[in-house]
């Protein structure tokens, strides 16, 4: 049992026993799904399938169905890619970085945040693949011997770094998530009454035992994977930012990009976690485990990373003038006052102003306000990528090539479709998987549970 200051707010409210924790988490999986679940899943699936239809049309017809032109060769696709990959940064940050820092509040949210990460990275990975046009030759990004002579992929290119970074990130996140899931699947397996679900969870749990030696290995694997995943999280979005920063396009060619992108990714990822968890805790009655204190902690992360992002915006603006490069200066003038000023304005309001409201304790502990801000931040972070990509591309060195980008219905359809698919995946996860890390919650129950903290023994022992 770990020691914890008695004045710290308990992380698990109410008088829960180990068995209550199991009951609370397993009940939604074992009971019949509520009607609302079917409605939401149906809506998400229809939107997702519409997106799949748009993707199939795109693949059948060609990338020309997007609103791209000679000047703007990347638009919504790369915006959506960076947006999704950014959202996919919270999960591993919560489960890996916060594990290394021994933050116990992460245990209530890490499972679902990591599921969200995995689904978001799925959605992100889709965009570069469909942007290839000929998705069936997607394997050409791998360095495999080929019939074209000694033609290898270019290891100097940040685009190839991205291939390695994202596939590593996705697969390592899945492994990290699954290893934590095995003991919890075993809990459901041992409770299951129906033969089909017993069989299913038995396969999923890999025959987990709970032996002392297995737990010893489990903890070592969790720790080492967290240690590996921590630099991985930072590297992935740094490499995504290299896609832009290593180019010579004004507005992209800056050294500030890696840290600024990573902060932005954590910022948007936590916002998405808030959006999902605020609904989930209510729908699955997990208020005792994910309560105001958890929301407050996450809001503080949002506030800090939002401030880093805001500082980066202003630094960028200052440097564009201070560097004395006229193209650079123009790119930023054009961002703020050009034809895309409204996107810049949306980005600034949503990302710089809104997180500052979290300095007020009453606001950051208000669930309704948090939900509102989380949506605002998600919108703002989409606009951030849109601004960076669009305003830099649409007017660069050659004024005769200046252009504008108007999204086609397929652009919009693919984007909305990925949101639908993402929610469909998440709803499936919430229905069939243990949404809280049961074994981890139980291990902190005695240290951070309300009933234990309030008992006279607790104070005597600490």
């Amino acid at each position, binding site marked *: 049992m770990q020691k914890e200051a008695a004045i710290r707010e308990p992380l698990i409210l109410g008088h829960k026993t180990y068995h209550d924790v199991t009951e609370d988490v397993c009940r939604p999986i074992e009971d019949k799904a509520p009607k609302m679940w079917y409605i939401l899943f149906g809506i998400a699936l229809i939107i997702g399938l519409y997106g799949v239809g748009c993707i199939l049309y795109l693949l059948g017809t060609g990338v020309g169905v997007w609103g791209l032109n000679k000047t703007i060769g990347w638009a919504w696709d790369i915006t959506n890619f960076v947006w999704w990959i950014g959202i996919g940064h919270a999960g591993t940050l919560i489960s890996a970085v916060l594990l290394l820092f021994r933050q116990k509040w992460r245990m209530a949210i890490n499972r679902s945040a990591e599921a969200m990460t995995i689904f978001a990275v799925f959605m992100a990975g889709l965009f570069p693949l469909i942007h290839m046009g000929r998705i069936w030759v997607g394997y050409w990004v791998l360095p495999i011997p080929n019939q074209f002579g000694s033609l290898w992929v270019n290891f100097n290119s940040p685009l190839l770094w991205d291939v390695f970074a994202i596939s590593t990130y996705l697969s390592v996140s899945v492994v990290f998530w699954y290893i934590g899931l095995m003991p919890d699947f075993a809990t459901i397996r041992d409770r299951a009454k129906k033969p089909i679900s017993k069989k299913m969870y038995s396969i999923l749990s890999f025959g987990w035992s709970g*032996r002392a030696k297995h737990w010893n290995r489990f903890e070592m694997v969790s720790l080492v994977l967290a240690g590996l995943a921590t630099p991985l999280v930072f590297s992935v979005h740094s490499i995504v930012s290299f896609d832009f920063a290593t180019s010579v396009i004004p507005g992209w060619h800056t050294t500030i990009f890696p840290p600024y992108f990573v902060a932005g990714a954590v910022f948007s990822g936590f916002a998405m976690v808030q959006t999902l968890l605020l609904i989930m805790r209510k729908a699955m009655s997990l208020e005792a485990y994910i309560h105001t204190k958890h929301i407050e902690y996450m809001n503080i992360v949002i506030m800090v990373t939002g401030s880093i992002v805001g500082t980066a915006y202003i630094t960028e603006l200052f440097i564009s003038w201070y560097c004395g490069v006229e193209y650079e200066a123009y790119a930023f003038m054009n961002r703020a006052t050009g034809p895309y000023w409204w996107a810049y304005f949306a980005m600034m309001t949503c990302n710089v102003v809104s997180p500052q409201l979290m300095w007020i304790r009453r606001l950051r502990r208000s669930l309704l306000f948090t939900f509102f801000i989380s949506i605002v931040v998600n919108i703002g972070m989409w606009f951030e990528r849109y601004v960076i990509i669009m305003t830099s591309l649409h007017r660069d060195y050659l004024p005769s090539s200046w252009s504008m980008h108007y999204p086609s219905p397929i652009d919009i359809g693919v984007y909305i479709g990925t949101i639908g698919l993402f929610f469909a995946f998440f709803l499936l996860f919430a229905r069939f998987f243990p949404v809280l890390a049961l074994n981890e919650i139980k291990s902190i129950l005695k240290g951070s549970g309300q009933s234990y903290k309030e008992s006279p023994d607790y104070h005597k022992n600490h």
Partner: protein
Amino acid sequence: MADKVIYVMYDDDGVLKDGAKKLVSKGVKVADTFSPFPIHGIDPIIGVKNTRLGIMAFIYGLGGLTLATIGMRYFMIVDWPMNIGGKPNFSYLDNILAFVPISFEFTVLCAAHGMAITYLLRNKTLPGMPAQNPDPRTTDDKFVMEIRTSDNSMEEKELEKLIKETGYIEIDKKNI
């Protein structure tokens, strides 16, 4: 000689730990414990050695780094040196900065997956394996201690007397 396994069930991790400490001090060998979450501090009491998976992860990582270096050197320097703006391309060291990201990613990839696969194999936890825990309640809120008669020189009766003092809630015996 017929071996007998005694499963002693507790409803609290602290009670099990104290019980194990008491039994071990009396010279009883506790074979294993089964619990719904890691009981911190039980390993040295019942003599479970710390895992060496961390060392394996390091070795897998080194393997990944080596493989990435050999691969990229062959692709980019030996087999088809790319002429990018006339920049030097005739030695790995000249270009090493461009190879840092993939070297890192590949190291992590190999270390993480190598470790995870070793973990699953060593645990014998693979898809479709039967459940290894003696009682389904050990994944919920019960804690079980496994004691084998063949591990202990003392008589079964004596053993049971010692176990009785540890405050268990259930006891189960099985011949194997």
